[in-house]
């Protein structure tokens, strides 16, 4: 299962969900779903998001440890 701290990165950059959605070319609902963990983005979208925050993909998205 993929987890993410997109919300934290958005807060760091003081960016709204709507603004991020527009920058990466998806709907706001998609950003909400990613933050909630109910939707895993494609590699392309994850790369685009990482590029917006000037960081690596694995800084934002990571695998949740299985017990």
């Amino acid at each position: 299962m993929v987890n993410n701290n997109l919300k934290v990165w958005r807060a760091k950059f003081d960016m709204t969900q709507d603004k991020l959605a527009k920058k990466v070319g998806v709907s706001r609902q998609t950003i909400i779903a990613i933050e909630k963990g109910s939707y895993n983005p494609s590699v392309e979208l994850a790369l685009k998001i990482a590029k917006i925050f000037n960081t690596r993909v694995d800084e934002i998205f990571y695998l949740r440890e299985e017990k």
Partner: protein
Amino acid sequence: MKKVSFLFGIIILVIVTLILSIVFSPYFMMLMFLYFPLHLFYTESRMADEREKYIRYRAGYLTFQISIFLFIILFIQQAITTKTNPDAIYYLLVIFPIVIYSMFLLVQRLNLARSGRVILYVFGIWWILFAMLENGFTAGGFIQSSIGIGFFIPAILSYRFKKTASVLCFLYATFLVAFFLRAWKTPLLLLLMLFILPIPLYYAAIVFLKREGG
């Protein structure tokens, strides 16, 4: 502009539905369901993001499963109540979505040539069984089932001679189309026969000609 034409489409749909429902029968209210393809067409015309596409795929798959289930129930119910062969429309309702879905799925799971072969074998065997069950082990049954045996020749040839197999499929399918157009005058039966026999052959003819990617 697209939004205006979409709204215009909905208004037309509502007016036409209401007029038909008032003048003829309230059952024409079913036409309201045409809103969904209209809406899909509208949303399709703007860029859908990957999550929306995923949701559409899920919705489509779920709809497919439920529809197949309902069509099979309808088919059985029709067969039980009439105690005869259900009308061609019931066969079409069950077979049409399954065949389309299977063809797409096969290409994804197998390579192109193999998917063509599987289609030919499956439809060939299916037709032979159907002909035998309908006519029994009679001369008529053997003649009818020979149509299915014809599917195996291009399938076997395709292991080594894909182009020849493709040409054979194409010619055989065209012959069957010409034959059915002469033999069947009922449009639904004709459509059913075209769908069961020539369409898989045309499909195989195309995939045998295609080059494998990668």
